[in-house]
């Protein structure tokens, strides 16, 4: 009888655990739809990157609105370039660190960081300061240097980018938080939230060779969308982007934009550089494809000045 009892108990426990698990997943779906947030977009100005994030995320109802207990979170900053943080070609490490801390505080089981870098990845991870900051905050810094880490996906509704290979962590994690840095861009004029996804895929060259603007918008159709975009506009490369040549290219805007809609995020970011969002093809294309909203006037925006 004892043995039978054990089986029963374990069976029961198993069912309960399974139920809890599935319930957890449903919770995530609701949470990532952003039902808890009062605003479509929160913009903060005048503080340090980490302080601004504290305020911004609070306005969006706290990180608990996006990350629930036990979930695995992917934070995707821009770590593309082998430069120091003051040159602003990569996301600010302080900001990355603070976002990780919020995720872990909200109960995330694991937080991952990666980027498919342009310069040598070991150097960019190190010299950007992001690897150190992320590890200090308790995240796992994952490699993205080999095609081995990428898996084939399809985007059926896309115009040009119908197939792509994306990093396995994007597919395996429960929540995707996009943390781009706003920069001038020699070709697309600005690079920000949607273009940051070029560091998730393996074959960037395909995008360049097959209508870059359309591919950027196409990728944004992929079903694994960012639950939150945190746009780093603290130090902004306003000339010679996206890499920058010297510190002279950097304008200290001390700003940050948080939004669940990356089209709106890019639109607001374009304005920060004094460019009308409609002038940037990929933002307009994405808007027309229904990925997000370019019309900032119709959004519920919270503006905070510190």
């Amino acid at each position: 009888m004892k043995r039978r009892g054990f089986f029963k108990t374990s069976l029961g426990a198993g069912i309960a655990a399974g139920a809890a698990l599935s319930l957890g997943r449903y919770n995530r779906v609701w949470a990532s739809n952003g039902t808890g947030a009062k605003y479509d977009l929160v913009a903060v100005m005048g503080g340090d990157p980490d302080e601004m994030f504290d305020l911004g995320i609070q306005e969006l109802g706290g990180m608990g609105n996006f990350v629930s207990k036990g979930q695995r979170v992917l934070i995707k900053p821009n770590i593309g370039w082998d430069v120091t943080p003051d040159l602003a070609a990569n996301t600010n490490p302080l900001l990355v660190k603070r976002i990780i801390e919020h995720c872990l505080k909200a109960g995330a089981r694991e937080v991952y960081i990666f980027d498919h870098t342009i310069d040598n990845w070991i150097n960019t991870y190190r010299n950007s300061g992001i690897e150190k900051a992320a590890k200090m905050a308790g995240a796992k810094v994952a490699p993205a240097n080999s095609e081995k880490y990428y898996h084939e996906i399809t985007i059926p509704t896309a115009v040009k980018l119908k197939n792509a290979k994306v990093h396995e962590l994007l597919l395996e994690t429960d929540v995707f938080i996009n943390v781009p840095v706003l920069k001038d861009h020699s070709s697309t004029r600005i690079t920000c939230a949607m273009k940051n996804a070029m560091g998730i895929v393996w074959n960037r060259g395909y995008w360049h060779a097959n209508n870059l603007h359309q591919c950027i918008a196409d990728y944004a159709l992929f079903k694994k969308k960012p639950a939150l975009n945190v746009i780093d506009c603290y130090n902004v490369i306003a000339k010679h982007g996206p890499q920058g040549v010297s510190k002279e290219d950097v304008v200290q805007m001390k700003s940050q934009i948080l939004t669940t809609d990356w089209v709106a995020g890019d639109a607001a970011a374009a304005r920060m550089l004094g460019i009308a969002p409609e002038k940037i093809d990929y933002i307009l294309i994405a808007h027309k494809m229904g990925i997000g909203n370019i019309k900032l006037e119709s959004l519920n925006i919270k503006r905070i000045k510190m």
Partner: protein
Amino acid sequence: MTSAFLRRLRIVFSAVVLVCFIYIFAEFRTLIQPEYIKYLLYLQFIPSIIKFIDIKSLAAGGFLIVLLLTLVTGRTYCSFLCPLGIGQDVFSRIGGTIRKKFRRFGYKRPHTVVRYSVLVLVIAGTFIWGMYFINLLDPYSIFGRSILFFIKPVILVLNNFLAGILGRFDNYALHHLEIKGYNLMAYAIPAGFFILTGLLSLTKGRLYCNMICPVGTFLGLVSRLSLFRIKADENKCTRCGRCSVVCKSSCIDFLNHEIDVSRCVNCFDCIYSCPDKALSYGFIGNTREEKKSDESRRRFIAGSIMLFLGLSGSGRAQERGIPVPRRESTVKEEKNCPVSPPGAGSISDFNNRCTACGLCISVCPNDVLQPAIMQYGLAGYMQPVMDYHKGFCQYNCTLCTEICPTFALKPLLPEAKKLTQIGKVIFIKDNCIVKTEKTACGACSEACPTKAVFMIPYEGSLVIPDTNQEICIGCGHCEFSCPTVPYKAIYVNGNPVHQASKKPDIGKPGVSVPDDFPF
């Protein structure tokens, strides 16, 4: 000394040296700093001579230490410091486990004609034609290439296997590394020597070192004067012949109690093997028989040393000019000069100093350094050349210039490297995506670290690349990033002599700090 201590010391010491060498040639990027590698490379004989002739400073005097060591102790270098020699000892041991016969050597007559012919050919050939023979026969470089071409891939496979297992447990301590390989033509010589040294050492001990290796032969000559040697006590010796059987150099004539010091590599196996303790290593003293070491031989040795010293200086003095042009089959990419690595100064200087050891190729974090086939002409075969289809030169990286043991690549500070123009950018508008597809691209300009490639207005809202060669440093990031196939729309043509580039254009952007949200 008759104890087994010397042999044990040799085994431990050489094992450490070998592991370090394999490590730096296989995959060290993250673990060993370049400054430590210098200590390892300092004593490598031929690289040290080439570097010494170039900088004329004791900072490159490793070969003098080796000469001194040889004059005092004999060919200790060959067993303790030469990675190729140590590697062959490992092979010999493996050979012994395959077949006992492979480890039973016995006395053999020296290959006098072959070994001195090779030595003379290398020295004379280098004077007359340049670096061909040094590149082929420098033992350190042969070892380097063997590791780079054949051992490194095995290590990478192991690494990737372990990284895969760790990855399953969510651990990223190791990461997957692509095994890329090189142009197949580059494998011919390394494969030939890997097989030659491998097979000879597997079955015949140190035959390669005593028949072909020019450094072995040269140090063999020097060691004829050495003060410390292995000697046999005729009173204790029972002529059992065990020493002769274990001698990897086959240099012990036990019947006559003669040990050929020019071939003995001081492995000390014979001392260990002698049951009667008749063999010992020690000061030759006054009793040494010098029937062979006559005046003319001494003069020959002194002459050889001078020859070695004068060697690469003369190689440099030759007018070599621009290497054989390499033309692409299309009119569109007219790359008529290869791009030599930063720190090379000029292609001709570089070709005359590089021994093609492959260390820079191995350490290059971006795999832009590839073994040349005929880009530099025959003399530059296997020397590193910048291949912008494989990678690009990282703007602030100077690793290859820091580790080069021969100073073929001279150390460059990052600031200097960023202003060293190794080639110039050339844009082919007719290949460009912006023109052919009428869509945005700009991959080249995005990648350019100095903005020597920038975008100018084209049709409608499109922008198209334009170039400023004055501030281009030839890093090749544009060429690497350009997505067009089969021919690139932008490429770098090498500078036969490296030039100084102008500083990039620096100026404030037109965007100001917004006072308020512009939305």
